[in-house]
């Protein structure tokens, strides 16, 4: 019996493939024109083909996603390194500035001594732990605990490294616990001034605001040229002798002027202290 040549075999393959292609096309058409949706609208051969490709497709999708995440992390790491270098440089500059300030302070004290002025030491500060936070709509108070062997007094100034927190309004347990009247309490007011630039002064109290907005302060009754701008730092002015001068209150975020002129001016201030995440505070005696 004669065996078919490769050419005859290929011709047979060609015919078989063409017939198969026609059958598959008709099968697909019948599946698509039937009822149902999604996977049921695919013919059986199509489902088999999808099943063959799917594992690799899935693997490639996962690998692609992982590669994209890795590239993104690497790009971010480069950015973080640059930021870290910038902060280190800034830190070095601040350290140098601090050394210059210490030199100036020592020189100042020496000159005061030479001229016969009494050299006042800043009142000693103590670190107090925040034991409870009592925030209601308008009333915002903290309870702090004095460190062992120390006592809190009414009128003590409460602050953090960032700025003013408030003052001790009441003490209990022989000075072991104190209730702090916060800067953002609706009844609180503090005399403030613009740092460095204009030194305009005014009263700072909590801004009336809708619920669920971050606490904002507002500076009103501004005395001076009313030259307050966004980005100005507001410090305690020391007027009223409730707080010492120079403690940061916050930064001006928005200024509203009346339509008539510049007399009626409201400066909205973002507090320097994050009141919702206080854990430790510094308590100072106001040197009266």
């Amino acid at each position, binding site marked *: 019996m004669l065996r078919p040549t490769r050419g005859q075999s*290929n011709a047979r393959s060609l015919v078989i*493939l063409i017939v198969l292609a026609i059958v598959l096309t008709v099968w697909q058409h019948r599946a698509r024109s039937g009822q149902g949706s999604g996977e049921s609208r695919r013919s059986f*051969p199509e489902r088999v083909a999808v099943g063959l490709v799917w594992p690799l497709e899935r693997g*490639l999708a996962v690998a692609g996603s992982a590669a994209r995440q890795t590239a993104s992390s690497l790009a971010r790491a480069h950015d973080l390194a640059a930021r870290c270098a910038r902060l280190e440089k800034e830190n070095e500059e601040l350290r140098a500035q601090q050394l210059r300030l210490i030199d100036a302070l020592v020189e100042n004290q020496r000159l005061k001594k030479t001229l016969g002025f009494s050299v006042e030491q800043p009142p000693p500060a103590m670190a107090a732990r925040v034991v409870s936070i009592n925030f209601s709509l308008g009333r915002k108070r903290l309870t702090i605990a004095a460190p062992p062997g120390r006592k809190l007094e009414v009128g003590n100034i409460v602050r953090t490294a960032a700025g003013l927190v408030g003052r001790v309004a009441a003490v209990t347990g022989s000075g072991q616990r104190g209730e702090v009247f916060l800067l953002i309490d609706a009844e609180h007011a503090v005399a403030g001034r613009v740092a460095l630039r204009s030194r305009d002064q005014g009263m700072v109290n909590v801004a009336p605001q809708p619920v669920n907005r971050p606490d904002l302060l507002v500076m009103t009754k501004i005395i001076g040229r009313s030259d307050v701008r966004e980005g100005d730092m507001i410090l305690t002015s020391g007027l009223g002798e409730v707080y010492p001068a120079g403690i940061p209150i916050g930064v001006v975020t928005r200024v509203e002027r009346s339509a008539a002129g510049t007399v009626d001016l409201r400066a909205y201030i973002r507090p320097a202290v994050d009141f919702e995440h206080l854990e430790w505070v510094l308590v100072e005696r106001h040197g009266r």
Partner: protein
Amino acid sequence: MGFVVTLLLMIVCAAVQSTWPAWLRVHSQTPHLTLAAVICLGLGTGGASGLTAGFLGALLWGSISSATLGQLFVSHMGLGFFAGSLRGRVFADRVLVAMLLVGIGVLVASLVELLLAPPPSPQPWMWQALVRALYSAAVAAPIYLLVRSLRRFYPEPETL
């Protein structure tokens, strides 16, 4: 053995084409890897292999992209067979010829699609087809080199 290699190559091309990363797209177009592989296989291994590759490529790509199989069978099998018939001719073994053939093949396949299964909005067809053809031609070079290295799995071709 040749059939298994063809099937594996087509599966890989279809999977890579369907998961082609967005950042590698050119004007939102992906290269037509399946068709490029079909033409390269035809050119590198002969008409019968090109025809088989065209059949498998059309079935796999048509199934995962939910395209009409008929027009894909016509374009892929036809182009695979045609590329295979060029094997052994002058310059047919050059990568540039494979790239040129893939570019023209993608344009022909787009034309077949336009005629047999017209898209809902055929207006941007020409621009998309051109971009896709150029992109496919560019990626055809490594595919053709891969096919040339796989030639030992295929029998020496004879005319049909």
